């Protein structure tokens, strides 16, 4: 016989649902945004933009490519997490979601900003955002791993 859900359980379901929705949205947005960046980069190739393709643009080209690849990759990670959340045997702390979302912003955006203001073979200031972003992603993935390895119902 089914009855009204326990308030704590309802809260957890709501949190769970919100986390799923967050990663779905962040993942879709990242995929859209960085796929669009890919189209822009291809166009820069097609039209031989010297700012992008010249030797002086080598660092920029490399960093933009990294931004594109990491943005797409992290977008897929977010979508994967949204899909995998119901399967996790352990509880995923809210900090894991926050770290992953912040990392999804910092890593590709850091590469992009670093490329935008590249000076010769040196990236711009934005590249400094990549290491903390990577650390946040790593923390998030560690927490996901911990939840995945937890005993069922833990």
């Amino acid at each position, binding site marked *: 016989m089914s009855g009204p859900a326990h308030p704590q359980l309802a809260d957890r379901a709501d949190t769970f649902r919100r986390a799923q929705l*967050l990663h779905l949205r962040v993942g879709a947005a990242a995929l859209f945004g960085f796929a669009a960046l890919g189209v822009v980069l291809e166009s820069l190739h*097609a*039209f*031989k*933009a*010297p700012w992008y*393709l*010249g*030797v*002086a*643009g080598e660092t920029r080209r490399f960093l933009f490519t990294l931004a594109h690849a990491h943005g797409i990759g992290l977008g897929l990670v977010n979508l994967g997490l949204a899909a995998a959340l119901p399967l996790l045997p352990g509880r995923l*702390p*809210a*900090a894991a*979601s*926050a*770290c992953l*979302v*912040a990392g999804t*912003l*910092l890593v590709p*955006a*850091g590469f992009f*900003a670093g490329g*935008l*203001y590249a*000076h*010769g073979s*040196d990236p*711009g*200031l*934005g590249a*400094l*955002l990549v290491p*903390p*972003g990577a650390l*946040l992603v790593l*923390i998030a993935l560690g927490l996901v791993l911990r939840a995945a390895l937890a005993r069922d119902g833990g």
Partner: protein
Amino acid sequence: MELVLFFVLVGGAAVLLVRGARAAVAIALAAALVAGSAAAAVAWRARDEARRAAAAAARAPLPAPVADRGYVSSDACRACHPGEYASWHRSFHRTMTQPALGAAVRAPFAGETLRSEDDGRTYRLRREGDTLWADISGVGARRVPMMTGSHHMEAFWLAGARGNQLVEFPFTWLFDDARWVPRRDVFLVGTEYSKQPSTWNRICVECHVTGGVPGFDATLTVPQSRVAELGIACEACHGPAAAHVAANRDPFRRWSLHTSGAADPTIVNPARLPPPRSAEVCGQCHGIACPPDGWLQHGLGFRPGDALADGKPILRLASLGASHCRAQIAADTSFAPSRYWKDGMVRVSGREYNGLVESRCFAGGALACVSCHSMHDSDPNWQLARGKDGDGACTQCHATIGKDVAAHTHHAPGSTGSTCYNCHMPETTWGLLRAMRSHQITIPRVQDDVNAGRPNACNLCHLDRTLAWTADALARLWGTPAPALDADQRGTAAGALYIARGEAGVRAIAADAAAGHAAMAPFLVELLDDDYSAIRYTAVRSLRTIRGFADLPYDYVGTEESRWAAQREARARLARQPGDGVPIPYSRGEFERLAAQRDETDQMFLAE
């Protein structure tokens, strides 16, 4: 703007962390992110500014960029032609002129002190970060901002006093010897010949850079030189590429050209030009020329694909009197002997186009530099195209000979005597302290070479044979008419004759050819005390290839006393050990008799 974007991203990430978790750990992470990023940003900016200031200082004394002639630089070419860029990047053309910075410099600049006999000053060399400096006695610290050469030696340039003048540094670093030598001692130049220090802006800017403009003022004393690019880059051979770059931003145009295989009219491809016009692209620098009036102010108007005769006419010995530079040439009695053999064949390296245009093969209209050379598909050393480093270069036209080379050469197949280059392009030009191949493709005839005062191809191998022996062989095997020879030419081995009686250029070439010829050792020992340092250098280099002399101590720019001592030591070694092979008759008296006949009324300088 960069800082704003940076902190927007940091702030955004911090908000995401705090709002997402609202836990102490998330807040701590966000705080650490903001504080750490801010500190790192400050440190980064400070380092960045210092590096930019250092880079600007390093560039300061170099020629300013040409911005108004349609050049885009090799950087732009690389984007679409990475393979060609890479092959050019490996070449010594690229590094012909470079900023003298950091690891690009092979010379030590590690505190060594050199003394110049020319100006009596001492030069203490040092590095300061990436830049090179010379502390010059009586002058002070002077920056050494630029260098020429990267293949055999490095020459350096000092920042001058007028405009962006660059003045010849009085020493050159030799790679093979890993040592400094006085600048004049890398040239074949007589001790009494006055060779003034060069000004880069007046001479080298013409060919050792791309799109060089000397930029002298009206009095021709103060230069503000500009270059499209240091070194000999893409646009030196393909022409200014701004229009090409602009046109090819259109991807449909590019695809259309790729699929049709048609030439792109917006750029010059020497391989697609008619052979004579293609050769002119190389000839703009690899030829003896007199630049047009006004070039010291405005640079050259010649561009690849143009007729060289219009923009930078080549000077051939036969028509020097008709040149627009005839007045200058007439005033310089050494002009012709410094550049040509008596019959008009060019005798200095780097002027191969002059040799080519005098060749019968060229007159046929099918031969160009790219018939044998390639910038993009070759070893950087001689830039011979794949398959053209042997007889293949000649047999691509002379196919009948190629079917049985030995029947034509009368030498064993595969031997040096059966190699087309050795007989038809012998090493009778001089430059960079070595003999190099003539690019005037000729048929060996003793009479021609005797008339021109030049070693002949056969006797550069058969040094132990007389010219008469060679003439007999040529007559017997190829029907060549017999030459008129004097008694010494009939009776003395050509190698001995070239060294004993030859003028400086001949002695240098013969000394180079004598490497590995044990029978030539006594004659090479004689040259250890030659007046010309370049000859001494070549003689000892060849002597050290002969058994018993590899460790002979000798400094070709040392004092006379030290050279005499080394010569005595070499003579003692000659006396102690029998030479390998058949000896060439040698006596001091006979050598001195022949040496007294040398034609050296004028001091010589070969203008390589």
